[in-house]
């Protein structure tokens, strides 16, 4: 306990560290007699630089982490040659990507072919601006943050389609068409899931949503949305749709390598390919970041006595946990088929999303307490059970009987 109490001040001072660092640099520049507009510019640039570098570092970590996790799941060791435990592998990969020849197909639309990888990485970075990383650490404080997120995240499909169209490759085209259908379909459950939080919080601002999840029930249970019936359902929906939005297994149809080679990325090589790769991971981080902010209490500590750890550490820890789950799922499940994906979105997730709204409303009207628990569960469980039954009727999973000859 003494060791712990010793560390507390260190952590406490870390809490404001990023902001303090920025203030210090700005103060230094002010002392050097820089003009006011310049200081403002530097202030903005510093924020941008901050989360650019943090997320690129996270991307580098994630590609290493993903390969390690998949390897461990598959009884392998994963990258272990470059640097300690293979940690420098992403850097080696980066160098390889940079030095590779950039091949543009002769028949391709050269302008669009070059634009697509740049365009695809923009939305991820734009959406990062509104994430609440910690207490008072939202780069751009927007009253309608959540709207911006949806507006921006849909833009990726434009880039994906651009890539597929410009490549003039049949696999690319098929992949792009799949991607458009998929992203459009899963945008809706994503919005429905977020809407339930908006209903409960009464605000479109992410900061307000995180703050609404502060405090602890009975002194221990955090007051996060995920620990409510509607919140849990909405979180599951949000996460599934997030996987589909960022083209992760089991919804990686656009690049489904066993049928479409690499989908919209088939004709990309070198650093253009790397940009697609980066955007995929950044997209995953961003969408997990939103899941954390909406349902997992954002930067709030999970237990009251852990509040001494800086809020931004909690935020990133939660993101990493969700990213781990995404990788774990990738290591476990096969890919779904395109019509199943659509059926799943339109006949299962979206109806359930509407029921989540109902459930959230019931929860709110029933006073957000034990009564809410009792009343808000049936609107979720009954439709779920009915739909799962209906789904099971299409297949004879366990009921299939095999005979032995003779």
């Amino acid at each position, binding site marked *: 306990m003494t060791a712990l109490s010793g560390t507390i001040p260190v952590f406490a001072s870390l809490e404001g560290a990023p902001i303090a660092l920025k203030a210090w640099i700005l103060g230094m520049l002010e002392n050097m007699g820089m003009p006011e507009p310049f200081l403002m510019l530097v202030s903005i640039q510093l924020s941008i630089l901050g989360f650019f570098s943090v997320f690129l570092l996270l991307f580098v970590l994630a590609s290493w982490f993903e390969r390690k996790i*998949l390897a461990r*799941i*598959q*009884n*392998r060791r994963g990258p272990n040659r470059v640097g300690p435990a293979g940690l420098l592998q992403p850097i080696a990969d980066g160098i390889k990507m940079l030095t590779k020849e950039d091949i543009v197909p002769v028949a391709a639309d050269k302008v669009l072919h070059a634009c697509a990888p740049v365009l695809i990485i923009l939305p991820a970075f734009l959406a990062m601006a509104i994430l609440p990383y910690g207490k008072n650490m939202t780069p751009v404080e927007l009253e309608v943050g959540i709207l911006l997120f949806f507006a921006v995240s849909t833009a990726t499909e434009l880039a994906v389609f651009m890539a597929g169209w410009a490549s003039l490759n*049949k*696999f690319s*085209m*098929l992949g792009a068409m*799949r991607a458009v259908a998929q992203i459009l379909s899963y945008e809706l459950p994503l919005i429905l899931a977020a809407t339930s939080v908006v209903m409960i919080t009464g605000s479109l601002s992410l900061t307000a949503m995180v703050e609404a999840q502060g405090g602890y029930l009975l002194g221990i249970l955090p007051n996060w949305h995920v620990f409510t019936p509607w919140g849990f359902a909405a979180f599951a929906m949000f996460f599934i749709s997030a996987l589909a939005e960022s083209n992760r*297994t*089991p919804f*990686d*149809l656009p690049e*489904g*390598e*066993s*049928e479409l*080679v690499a989908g919209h990325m088939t004709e990309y090589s070198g650093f253009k390919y790397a940009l697609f790769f980066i955007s995929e991971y950044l997209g995953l981080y961003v969408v997990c970041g939103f899941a954390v902010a909406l349902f997992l209490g954002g930067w709030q500590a999970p237990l009251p006595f852990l509040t001494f750890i800086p809020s931004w550490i909690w935020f990133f820890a939660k993101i990493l946990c969700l990213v781990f789950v995404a990788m774990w799922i*990738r*290591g*476990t*499940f*096969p*890919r*779904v*088929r*395109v*019509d*199943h994906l659509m059926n799943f979105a339109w006949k299962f997730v979206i109806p359930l999303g509407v029921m989540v709204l109902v459930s959230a409303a019931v929860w709110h009207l029933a006073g957000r307490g034990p009564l809410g628990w009792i009343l808000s569960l049936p609107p979720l469980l009954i439709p779920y059970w009915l739909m799962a039954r209906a789904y099971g009727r*299409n*297949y*004879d*999973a*366990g009921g*299939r*009987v*095999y*005979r*032995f*000859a*003779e």
Partner: protein
Amino acid sequence: MNPPSETGSPSPNPAESPRYRTAGYDSDAQLLEVSLGPQHPSTHGVFRMNVALDGEDVVKLKPVFGYLHRNHEQIAEQVSYLGSMPYTDRLDYFCSLSNNWAYAAAVEKLAGIDVPERAEYIRVITSELTRLVNHTSFLGFMLSDMGAWGTVLMYAFREREKILDLFESLTGSRMMGNYMRFGGCRCDLPPGWLEQARKVVDGYPAFLDEMESLIATNEIVISRTQRIGRLPADKAVNGSMTGPCLRASGVNYDIRKVDRYGIYDRFEFRVPLGDHGDCYDRLMIRFLEMRETLKILRPALRDIPEGPVMDPKARQRNLRPPEGEAYARVEAPKGELGFYLISDASDKPYRYRVRPPSLINLTLLEDLCLGEKIADVMVILGTIDIVLGEVDR
């Protein structure tokens, strides 16, 4: 051949099913012709399918093969009888020992050579282990074709390695066995081999249980395989499909039971049959077959007698079988593998012909794939379980 069972066959006329809508296809619509392969991640080698797509639906599919043609049959007519034994390893390189057996059996039939009992036991043990290897890696490859990122493949390879280690210490090579000889086997089992094999066999059910829990009831696997690529029993028989794919359609035809070649009549095992003939049945039949294989292996490893492994009178080099012809077949893991030989009393076969199960099963690919989605083509191809070394020869 047994007639198709009444209970087992799916709807007799697939053209009536809405999936098969090729007949009335609107020719004005624009089709997307895609050439899948020969360089494609999941065509199991250099196999090519010319697919015409309407959206994601397959309306035409033409398998193109021959990219891996190595002139196996012609070469075999130029070298001695013994000389083509190592080449048979390279037909279906997952099941080299079954191939060895089929070829050795054909030559034995041609030349009238007997096989000692211990060698018969070794042949049964090795070819049943081969069946385990094949079906295990089949599961892995098929799940990879479905997009499972290699996890199941790695688990399958982990178990397969254990059997390959056995093969390595027995034959000197992990995959290219070259182990059977006319009138027996090349060498006796190394000391301790039987114990090791028993250990592998005893550990196998646990692995199968794990795989079943991972695969058999998984929602995505079920939705990707059930009612996909249905093959009615009559069509399967007409297309002369053999092996697990035929049995998944409900036709009771297992050469181990039909011919009772070797010493298979000494073992108690059953032939699992599917009902629907879809991809899920083809998958599950392999699971069930592996469990039956274990039932053969346990008594075989227990009862194997001492004795010579080679008929001392059998000649290997300069074998000149009397004039005549012979066809011998075995139930290879992929189906009926047969060798047809004509001898003109010289030291080379006058005619040498392989009946490869992969190639003949593959001829039904178009019928299976029409009306399905493009993603299903890969799964269907995966469940037919081809090896290009055998298709192209």
